[in-house]
């Protein structure tokens, strides 16, 4: 959970007076709050942690990091279905449809 992942700002908007963006992480898109890096522009790369941009990053470093995270399976871990991950760890994946817990 301490992972911070670089991504590209592909859409900017204001929501309740808060600067928000859609950020692309090698194909996965997430809503990200830009309040901490207020002067970000469309196409810039930022380092994102739990939905917040905490720093900028140059494009080539960002692409390199993204490619290696993709290879290592970190993107799946960060953006994938967390409940499914927990079930897998608990050894419950075989019964994923039979369990009592509902998907959120």
């Amino acid at each position, binding site marked *: 959970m*301490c992972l911070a992942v670089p991504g590209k700002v592909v859409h900017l908007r204001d929501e309740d007076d808060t600067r928000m963006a859609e950020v692309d992480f090698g194909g996965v898109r997430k*809503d990200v709050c830009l309040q*901490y890096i207020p002067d970000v522009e469309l196409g810039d790369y930022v*380092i994102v942690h*739990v939905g917040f941009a905490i720093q900028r990053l*140059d494009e080539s470093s960002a692409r390199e990091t993204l490619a290696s995270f993709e290879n290592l399976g970190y993107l799946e871990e960060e953006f994938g279905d967390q409940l499914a991950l927990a079930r897998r760890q608990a050894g419950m994946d075989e019964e994923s449809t039979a369990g009592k817990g509902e998907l959120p």
Partner: protein
Amino acid sequence: MKYLEEFSDPQLARRLLDQIHATVTRPWALMEVCGGQTHSIIRHGIDQLLPEGIEMIHGPGCPVCVTPLEIIDKALEIAAREDVIFCSFGDMLRVPGSKHDLFRIKSEGSDIRLVYSPLDALKIAKENPQRQVVFFGIGFETTAPANAMTVYQAERLGIENFSLLVSHVLVPPAIAAIMESPSCRVQGFLAAGHVCSVMGTREYPALAERFEVPIVVTGFEPLDILEGIRQAVVQLESGRHEVQNAYRRAVPEDGNPVAKEMLRDVFEVTDRAWRGIGSIPRSGWRLSERYRRFDAERRFAVADIHTDESSVCRSGEVLQGLIKPNECAAFGKQCTPRNPLGATMVSSEGACAAYYQYRRLDLLPAGASR
């Protein structure tokens, strides 16, 4: 050298390793603070590529692992309430409390939702004004700005049914505590890169000076770690103890000033218990007076928590770098990711989980684990 091809730039990895090998003349013990770095080191076998005498000691920088048992038990109690929607990051789900974990009570019907960002929890609060929505706000300085902004927004937008169960921890006091321990063997630190992306590097020179220990701000990709190790051993070999920044692309000296200002407004420093380690003075953040009404511990006055820690689990020693996971008798036997006795076996940033995932075949006698 079977691991080298897995580096994003094997030639650079080779060069860095050659330089490290050429520099080292005697044994040194380095601690990587961040659990993400531990994961990377074990996964890529970095410790096995280093010269004989260079030991990597794994540090306490796994937020999931150090969240105190008492807070986990409080989370369990709050999450079980009928009027509560409890929101958390996924990796807290299977952390063992005294009796059970969030995963268990979720399957028994508690309304526990996994979110990507604390802002998602705030949204849930907005959409469910008749319910209490609690977010489990744990983590180091990297995560704190997200939680701070969420509480700030809750106040600004008048979302009063939102609250935060806070257990933030801080890296510099942990470094001091490790160095002050009589059993400390650490001679150099790799400081956690993304923590410094937020906080900058200015807190560290005083520590380097006081404990005469080099501190190298380091990223957590394999090549970053090799570079951090290289800078640390160069300093050690030449008798220096300075703060160096080996992660400049993501760490300006000042960190993120806007985030730091928000942190100063929303949080205040407090003593904090670290699971398995004990209380470290001034090592955490709690909500400041102005925002305290959003504190879930206060809102739900959870009293009479009797914590009951596993008597077998040695995660405290693992987190302080006093033992390696496989020195714990339960490792891979009673304790596996499927059946974790301690949080360090749950989180992917926990040393026990990393050893289990990547090393158990080398470390355990055949047939010991599933």
